[in-house]
């Protein structure tokens, strides 16, 4: 689509969206009134910078359905963002939203060369997490034969992949690597498999990881980006030239803003990636700040697509970690420790990758009053913390007790995480 035509479409959709949220979502009416901006002030795409931002906290504050713009009778699906402080963030979809979502995922898969001739194994988790069902509906839209196997159970994944002759795989990059490495152990080799394409996402991964996956599986590997707040997977996807991810900007309008000043930055400069959902009905969001760091490019891609491209995510402007596809803020750990009150709240979280799976180890300072003369009491204490963390964040964490006052105190922002992945 020529850029001017795209801009005209985006402008029209933006104006309609702003009207809709102003009239249907009290949160946005209030925010816009506070900012002194009326729907009629939005005349051009550039006027978007007059609109207020939306943050993850706003979704939490309006849990569960406070930001929905339609009555519940029009909501046909609810998803939840994985692992957040206390309350999850919930998103709702109308029938149209599901159709649009399927459409953008289908476009993404098509970019990866996937067609109705393919057998797609969807090994993302099915459930509240958007990965499984998002990929599923997109693959059906393309016309693939979909295998909704969901995540986990490595032996069965490999068995069905071999028996069914899966030609495409959708899962997290780390799980794809784990599956590749587990082949030999389960008695399979590459010659048993017919895989030709992999669509990987839900966690940041590097160009080197892509090359490794392509080598280990003998496939073409593609990056699919998305987040439940905006839609789920399929917000953007890379083509065979891997020069950034094409954003489906007719649905999701991207901006890059300065992490400090929050002022819009021009193309080619790195900053926080912000999306406005141009067509979403269930939970439309204005200028949602993903806190992902990226850069936008508008030159035409070698593949011929004119869609704006976003650079592969290089990091985040906040301290959110993505562990096995689950979002984790260090503050959640702190919350659990304080609630238990069995240890001090001084901790250090070590993230590592063993056998291609993310691992978490929490070192936490022992409270002297909890010391007894038996090891068993300390082990029970560790297990109790492990259990509490597991139920709060949905991830298993190895807890190691350390001596009081041995975890470095810092005067400014405390360093709570040592991430040894990608090293």
């Amino acid at each position: 689509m020529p850029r001017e035509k795209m801009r005209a479409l985006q402008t029209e959709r933006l104006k309609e969206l702003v009207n809709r949220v102003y009239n249907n979502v009290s949160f946005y009416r209030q925010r816009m009134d506070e900012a002194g901006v009326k729907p009629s002030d939005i005349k051009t795409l550039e006027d978007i910078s007059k609109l207020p931002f939306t943050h993850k906290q706003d979704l939490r504050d309006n849990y569960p359905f406070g930001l929905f713009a339609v009555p519940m009778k029009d909501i046909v699906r609810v998803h939840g963002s994985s692992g957040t402080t206390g309350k999850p963030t919930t998103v709702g979809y109308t029938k149209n939203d599901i159709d649009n979502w399927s459409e953008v995922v289908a476009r993404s898969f098509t970019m990866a060369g996937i067609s109705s001739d393919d057998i797609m194994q969807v090994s993302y988790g099915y459930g509240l997490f958007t990965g499984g069902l998002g990929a599923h509906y997109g693959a059906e839209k393309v016309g693939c034969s979909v295998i909704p196997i969901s995540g986990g159970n490595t032996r069965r994944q490999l068995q069905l992949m071999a028996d069914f002759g899966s030609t495409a795989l959708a899962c997290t990059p780390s799980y794809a690597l784990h599956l590749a490495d587990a082949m030999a152990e389960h008695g399979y080799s590459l010659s048993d498999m017919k895989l030709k394409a992999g669509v990987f996402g839900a966690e940041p991964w590097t160009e080197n990881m892509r090359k490794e996956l392509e080598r280990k599986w003998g496939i073409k590997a593609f990056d699919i980006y998305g987040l439940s707040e905006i839609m789920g997977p399929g917000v953007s996807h890379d083509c065979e030239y891997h020069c950034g991810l094409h954003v489906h900007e007719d649905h999701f309008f991207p901006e890059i803003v300065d992490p400090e000043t929050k002022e819009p930055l021009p193309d080619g400069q790195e900053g926080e990636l912000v999306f406005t959902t141009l067509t979403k009905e269930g939970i439309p969001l204005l200028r949602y700040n993903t806190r992902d760091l990226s850069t936008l490019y508008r030159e035409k891609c070698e593949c011929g697509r004119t869609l704006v491209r976003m650079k592969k995510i290089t990091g985040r402007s906040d301290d959110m970690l993505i562990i096995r596809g689950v979002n984790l803020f260090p503050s959640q750990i702190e919350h659990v420790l304080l609630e238990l009150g069995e240890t001090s709240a001084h901790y250090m979280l070590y993230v590592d990758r063993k056998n291609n799976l993310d691992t978490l180890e929490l070192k936490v300072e022992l409270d002297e009053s909890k010391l007894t003369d038996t090891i068993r009491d300390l082990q029970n204490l560790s297990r109790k913390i492990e259990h509490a963390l597991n139920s709060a964040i949905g991830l298993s964490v190895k807890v190691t007790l350390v001596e009081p006052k041995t975890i470095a105190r810092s005067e400014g922002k405390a360093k709570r995480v040592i991430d040894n992945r990608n090293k």
Partner: protein
Amino acid sequence: MTIRQLSVFLENKTGYLNEMLAQLAKYNINIIALTVADTSEYGIVRMIVSDPEKALDILREGQFTVRMHDILSLEMDAAPGSLSKILNLFTEADICIEYVYAFSFGSKSIVVFRTNNRDKAIEIINENKLKSIREADLK
């Protein structure tokens, strides 16, 4: 029939045990008995020392994580089978030994231990007139 024991939480670091012992040596604390319960990341050092109060202060001052507890202590005959004879009494009463260690002091053979049922253990000791050890016996 109880004496005071110090329990020190020590992470597994080379030279760290010695660092703690050096502190005690500096203040002339005598270690009468010492045993370590260890895991892959840390251990608990259990000690009977000549002056538990003073040792506790010294270790706290030195930023060690330390607690003081009372544990049961008995004198044994210096003869084969004497510890087994004592433990038999506990087994028969369905008392579980959580940890135990033995040492000698002068001519005395001493055993100290923790059970899962302290009150019942004391009853057994009294009923069988087992010879208990007090801190004064370790001067």
